[in-house]
């Protein structure tokens, strides 16, 4: 067996920490070297991995759909192709399953950037890749919250710089975070004008339990389990779209902007 390794010495420096003196010599080097190696340990590691890999591959290598785009996991952006995709498809799948007892349908889906754990490549999307994207066993839930809590939600979204939401709502935030009291007055007026009393938000049970400090979900008016895991919703959506002959296409539509 021959394993090629290339590793980059990104950085190489010498500090001098004698006493409290500043370093007397510091240098950045940028050398890369290649090792061709078949040392017993690596073979040993490969042999250890092999039986686990075979069993896993048999299940995880199933191609669910072809992606026409890359969906990189990106930090610090108000919206991402990846976040939009997952929030939109979650709402799509949940709406097929969720039958409201009070005639009020889901307003929108809110997830969190941290919960989407990897990028999706262009090309074949396997079941295994979806497990990497959504490794957690989180369930989709519908949380009914008061308009006061909804204002907290919007304030959170503003303060945090954006999280994945479904595309039927859009938020144009000012760059600077407005005072909570100020937003409260503003939104109360809007909600009253439209006679909105409560919101139904689709999210994961992790976030509904206050994960990522989404405390506005705590003590809600109502919480209902959709009956599907978020990961299974993604898998179901990919399979459905594939069956229709469609590919995954990325979309940025300005659903969250900061002016």
């Amino acid at each position, binding site marked *: 067996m021959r*394993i090629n*390794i290339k590793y980059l010495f990104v950085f190489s420096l*010498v500090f001098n*920490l004698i006493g409290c003196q500043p370093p007397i*010599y510091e240098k950045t080097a940028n050398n890369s070297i290649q090792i061709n190696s078949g040392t017993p340990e690596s073979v040993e*590691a490969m042999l250890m991995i092999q039986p686990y890999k075979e069993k896993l591959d048999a299940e995880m290598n199933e191609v669910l759909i072809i992606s026409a785009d890359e969906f990189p996991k990106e930090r610090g952006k108000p919206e991402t192709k990846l976040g939009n995709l997952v929030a939109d498809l979650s709402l799509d799948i949940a709406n097929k399953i969720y039958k409201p007892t009070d005639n009020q349908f889901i307003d929108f889906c809110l997830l969190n950037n941290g919960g989407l754990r990897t990028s999706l490549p262009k090309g074949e999307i396997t079941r295994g890749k979806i497990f990497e994207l959504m*490794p957690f066993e989180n369930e989709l839930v519908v949380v009914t919250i008061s308009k006061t809590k909804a204002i907290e939600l919007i304030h959170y979204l503003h303060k945090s710089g954006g999280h994945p939401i479904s595309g039927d709502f859009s938020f144009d935030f000012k760059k600077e975070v407005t005072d909570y009291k100020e937003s409260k007055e503003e939104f109360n007026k809007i909600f009253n004008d439209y006679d909105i009393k409560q919101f139904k938000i689709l999210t994961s049970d992790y976030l509904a339990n206050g994960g990522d400090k989404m405390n506005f979900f705590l003590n809600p008016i109502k919480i209902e389990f959709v009956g599907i895991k978020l990961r299974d919703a993604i898998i179901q959506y990919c399979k459905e779209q594939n069956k229709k002959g469609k590919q995954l296409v990325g979309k940025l539509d300005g659903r969250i902007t900061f002016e």
Partner: protein
Amino acid sequence: MSRRKFIKQSLLSGFGLASLNLIPFSSFAAKKKSYTKITILHTNDVHSHIEPFPDNDPKYPGMGGAARRAVLIKQIRSEEENVLLLDAGDIFQGTPYFNMYGGELDFKLMSLMQYDCATIGNHDFDNGIDGITKMLPHANFPFINANYDFNDTILKGKIEPYKIFIKDGVKIGIFGLGVELDGLVEKKLYKETKYLEPVGIANKIAEKLKTKEQCDLIICLSHLGYQYKSDKISDLKLAKKTKNIDLIIGGHTHTSLEKPTKIRNLSHKNTLIIQVGWAGINLGRLDFYILKDKNYSVSYQNLRIQNKSF
């Protein structure tokens, strides 16, 4: 280790220090055995990335992989006498290997690579505290944490606050710190584990390691995270608010530092902070060159594990 071997290895590995080390070390390197070299290798947030990323990954094509890391570690072990291999937590969760096997293979591979110890990250609770306990028999190395109180849990007595290693006469004390679980991990998973405020504990343990245990080097394996916009405790804050800690090996925020961050600590000495991203894409390497009087110099490399040329 003799100087000749040191120079030879520097040239061989493309270390870039062969000429460079002559400047700071010329005063003592000429004398035989005038310093002891301790090589610290570290990973964090490997997140069950057993296999390398596929070649079509948008961000990390062909990077990482446990079998490659094992070769790299083996290579370094063949060149260095005093190696400590450490992990700063979040070993679990991130690929189907965790969903299917619950961390068994991760611990077995880390045992094979001869990890010396690891600390516990928030995602290591993802199959519950029972999930960690169930996997412990697959690890031949200890887990350390000083600020989770496990007394009312199944892990009681299985996690030690710190470990002491002696390498070539150098005494190295390593303790572990974990991030606040509330809001990150569901209560049903961590159960009766109590998170304790880390700064006071860090100071108490570092003091004990320094004075009572007489450690020459004190290392904190931290899963607190490098820094936050909020006032949440981070490695940067920890370093400023503590003394006696030489090195903080961090995790949680997936921060990739090209060089150690140097912080002036509470006693106006230097505390270094290092962290190497996530997913086993990089292996961090920090070498301490410790003089007879216990003062030391440090060199650092952030080694990228990659299967194709740049």
